[in-house]
């Protein structure tokens, strides 16, 4: 019998994420953001983390505000529907936070190089831009075949990738659907993968549709059952985006004091998934529920 990989969130992060780790989060961009896992990093007072991800929405800003991050390797750090994020601004403008500036394509290709086990991937983007001044992982090279100028993007291999999915079995095989961003490459590029899932299901459910498996279970380190684990980001098939939470966070995080208060209320005071749901409230949760279900047609994998 294979060993189960089911852990609690505190156990998974305590075991696989020491201080100084590089962690990849927000890999589907706007959806499936592992907010619950990010908040556990804050509760465990992780320090000197390197944050890796394309856009992250407000999760990176929260980790920066809580003092968890030393370095950020990202294409965009902000609040998708309101704009600039304030902890990022305070961190960079005071010189305590180190930035490696990517575009979405260079970040995606850095992870793909990591996933493919090569040292870099070539691209045609960013040539002539100043990204080369603030990212030591970008160099101009000459194509050995065409002679074209190309951007070489150095491989990115995170210590841990965090992903939130709709369903997983206890062995780390997981189904995710919707737009997937850089999730697949980031998982393959990372040493450890920690999955939080809306549902834990029987292995046969996952095996019934192997095309939907996000990464092979043998590469996964831990599986955590965490309903609402991506809130306020949307999870296809489960809940819509909670726009008000993003608007409220903008207001709260404008000052350090406001951010501290937000962290006390929404992170530090939350000891369990039930606490979080209590805080959210049943009316608000119901308001985010799907109003129109749209299941796909089944695919026949028979022989």
């Amino acid at each position, binding site marked *: 019998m294979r060993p189960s990989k089911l852990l609690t969130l505190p156990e998974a992060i305590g075991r696989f994420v020491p201080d100084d780790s590089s962690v990849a989060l927000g890999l589907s961009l706007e959806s499936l953001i592992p907010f619950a896992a990010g908040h556990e990093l804050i509760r465990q007072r992780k320090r000197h983390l390197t944050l890796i991800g394309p856009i992250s929405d407000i999760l990176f800003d929260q980790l920066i505000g809580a003092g968890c991050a030393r370095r950020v390797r990202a294409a965009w750090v902000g609040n*998708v*529907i309101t704009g600039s994020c304030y902890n990022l601004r305070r961190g960079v403008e005071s010189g305590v936070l180190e930035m490696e500036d990517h575009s979405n394509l260079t970040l995606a290709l850095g992870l793909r190089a990591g996933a493919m086990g090569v040292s870099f991937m070539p691209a045609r983007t960013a*040539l002539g*831009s100043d990204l080369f001044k603030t990212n030591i992982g970008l160099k101009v090279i000459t194509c050995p075949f065409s002679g074209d100028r190309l951007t070489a993007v150095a491989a990115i291999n995170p210590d841990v990738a965090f992903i939130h999915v709709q369903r997983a079995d206890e062995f780390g095989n997981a189904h995710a659907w919707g737009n997937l961003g850089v999730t697949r490459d980031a998982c393959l590029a990372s040493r450890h993968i920690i999955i939080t899932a809306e549902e834990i299901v029987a292995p046969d459910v996952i095996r019934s549709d192997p095309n939907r498996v996000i990464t092979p279970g043998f590469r996964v380190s831990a599986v955590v059952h965490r309903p609402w684990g991506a809130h306020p980001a949307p999870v296809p098939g489960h809940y819509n985006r909670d726009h008000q939470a993003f608007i409220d966070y903008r207001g709260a995080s404008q000052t350090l004091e406001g951010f501290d208060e937000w962290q006390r209320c929404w992170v530090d005071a939350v000891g369990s998934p039930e606490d979080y749901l209590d805080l959210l409230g049943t009316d608000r949760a119901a308001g985010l529920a*799907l109003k129109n279900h749209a299941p796909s047609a089944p695919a026949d994998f028979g022989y």
Partner: protein
Amino acid sequence: MDRHSNPTRPQDSEKSPPIGFTLPQLMVTAAAREIRDGEVVFVGMRLPLLGFLLAKSTHAPNAIGVYELGIVRDTVAPAPILTMGDLPNLYHAQWLADTADAMGLLQQGQVDVSFIGGAQVDRFGNLNTSYVGGLSRIATRLPGSGGACDLASLAGRHIIVMSHEKRRFVPRVDYMTSPGYGEGPGWRRRVGLPRGGPAAVITTLGVFHFDAKTCEMILVAVHPGVTVEAVQAHTGWPLRVAPEVHQTPVPGEEELAMLRRFDPQGYWTGS
């Protein structure tokens, strides 16, 4: 487009457009009209999100939308969205895939037109959305490129949508997040960019195109109630003006009705 500049707030010094539509509605309509029927559009955040929906519902029903999240759509989303990751934008998509897939289409040259926002722009259409004040003295850290650098590098042409203020329209950007025409004619080819360049800038005051010879921004239209002098006053270099400056066409009733449907709360297009 990037996600931080907010082109929806008119400046105090500007006159309000005539009653009946808002400045953001005028800008979205101008953006939508840049999309031709049948084109593949890399759809950016905020106003361009609505611009694509508007174009698809009016003059460009065969346009295809590509989104950096890894989404391709050939229909209008069935319910209003505030952002491209909202679930109605995933419903019955043509393709849900990876960011690298969407970016691969762009890098291959499959994307005709894209939209980008900017915090700072110069006369060659170079954009800064990263560091105001430059690297030696960072005054303001902005969110960064997102997909903007890729769109500016690789789309067939790109349209810039941004707020028009003197501190944003500068002789030379402090940091070049997204390349325009660089230092002028021939620059894009010299650095190795395969195609493209900015085709238009839609601001809170007017519309610019780029001179084919000099690659400089040229004022071609002003919004209702805005003068050429006012545009110059808000531009940090000696403005180049087309021989004939038109008034930006105002949104029609059908366009306004569509915009009210797509943004019923007026989150992006309210006054």
